[in-house]
């Protein structure tokens, strides 16, 4: 095994080009588990800790460019207003120690369906900035997940950042685990209202081979809101709409039975989470003007 320690982003890209099988390691919270438990012996480890820009974020216009290694703790602390769904998801990641090290780049690189950031990224919408010595490309998040632990990156590419749309409406994230902290998702759900575009986006985790959106549910809800003029009236959401939305989310999943939970429970739980998160976001949308949204988008803690 060889440990590559590039001092700059350019060096990192060059190293990845030279050793396409090199495994990038930033927070280490996935890679080191595999090494400690002898599940993986890469020829090269590519350390990204020395590349400062990966730990930085910029808010410009209506997007946030979030460095791949910005730790979840920082997202919780500093980006709650801009990225409320991702901030909530960040808070459910493992433990404080892990949140201090891990970042979105790791979740994307590993592309496990159980990664906590995925449902929030899918719901919020955005693009993955994939870079190689050949150049930069922005991969829409919807096209990023390709299979179980497979993503759209080319072997010579590294994730530099994600470009995320600043929230224009309430967002929520909810995850079922069998413990009240430090738990891997049995399944998870992210929801974002986009009042500016009159759309709704969702994300489902741990209930299909990849993180997915529940597009039928999104379209149904957007249409229902439109038809009833609810975006403008901020009126009460009809329970039947919430129920059908929940059913459609549930139906969008394609889960399996595994040691963490059953397929049927996952479908059921996704429906409950969809209904609840819709209730929370809609109530928030009803009760607030846009500039107030930022402060109340999360429950305490």
């Amino acid at each position: 095994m060889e440990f590559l320690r590039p001092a700059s982003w350019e060096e990192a890209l060059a190293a990845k080009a030279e050793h396409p099988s090199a495994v990038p390691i930033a927070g280490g919270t996935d890679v080191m588990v595999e090494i400690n438990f002898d599940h993986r012996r890469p020829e090269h480890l590519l350390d990204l800790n020395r590349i400062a820009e990966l730990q930085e974020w910029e808010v410009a216009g209506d997007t946030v460019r979030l460095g791949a290694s910005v730790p979840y703790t920082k997202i919780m602390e500093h980006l709650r207003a801009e990225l409320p769904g991702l901030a909530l998801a960040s808070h459910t990641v493992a433990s404080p120690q892990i949140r201090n090290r891990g970042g979105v780049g790791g979740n994307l690189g590993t592309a496990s369906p159980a990664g906590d950031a995925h449902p929030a990224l899918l719901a919020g919408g955005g693009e993955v900035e994939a870079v190689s010595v050949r150049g930069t490309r922005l991969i829409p998040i919807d096209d990023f997940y390709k299979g179980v632990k497979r993503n759209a990156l080319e072997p010579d590419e590294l994730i530099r950042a994600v470009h995320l749309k600043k929230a224009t409406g309430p967002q929520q994230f909810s995850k079922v685990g069998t413990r009240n902290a430090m738990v891997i998702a049995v399944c998870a759900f992210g929801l974002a209202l986009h009042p500016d575009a009159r759309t709704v986006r969702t994300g489902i985790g741990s209930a299909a081979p990849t993180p997915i959106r529940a597009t039928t549910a999104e379209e149904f809800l957007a249409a229902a809101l439109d038809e009833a003029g609810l975006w403008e009236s901020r009126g009460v959401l009809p329970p039947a709409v919430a129920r059908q939305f929940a059913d459609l989310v549930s139906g969008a999943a394609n889960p399996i039975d595994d040691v963490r939970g059953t397929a049927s429970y996952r479908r059921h739980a996704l429906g409950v989470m969809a209904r609840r998160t819709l209730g929370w976001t809609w109530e928030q949308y009803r009760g607030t003007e846009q500039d107030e949204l930022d402060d109340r988008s999360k429950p305490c803690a």
Partner: protein
Amino acid sequence: MRVTFTVNGAPQEADDVWEGESLLYVLRERMGLPGSKNACEQGECGSCTVRLDGVPVCSCLVAAGQVQGREVVTVEGLAGEGGELSTVQQAFVDAGAVQCGFCTPGLLVAADELLERNPEPSDGDIREALSGNLCRCTGYEKILDAVRLAAARTEEAV
């Protein structure tokens, strides 16, 4: 490979480090600092918690090579120079928060950082800050007592 970094204020160096070694292994087996504990080696117990450039992390999930040139504080660095226990260490002893003690070093590092950040934590804050540290002996009640005690003593001392 060779790895050089600062541990508890003193420069340390390790040679012939295998590239897959964790910071935890280097501390325990190469630097004579076995205080950080090896309970799970998968980031699910917190017993190996150290501060890396001030931030609490699981040292089992930090590759040794990633620590080059950085600062690490372990449980061995909590006591004063004369060996006097820190407030949080003394509180753990006094409150009966230590049984087998294997989780204790990680809890101390995490609790110490919590009190530095939040000198008057609520019980909810304490529980959240320590939710990455498993203890199998105590049922956590005495650990909560200890952190409350350390906070109260720090408050008194101010």
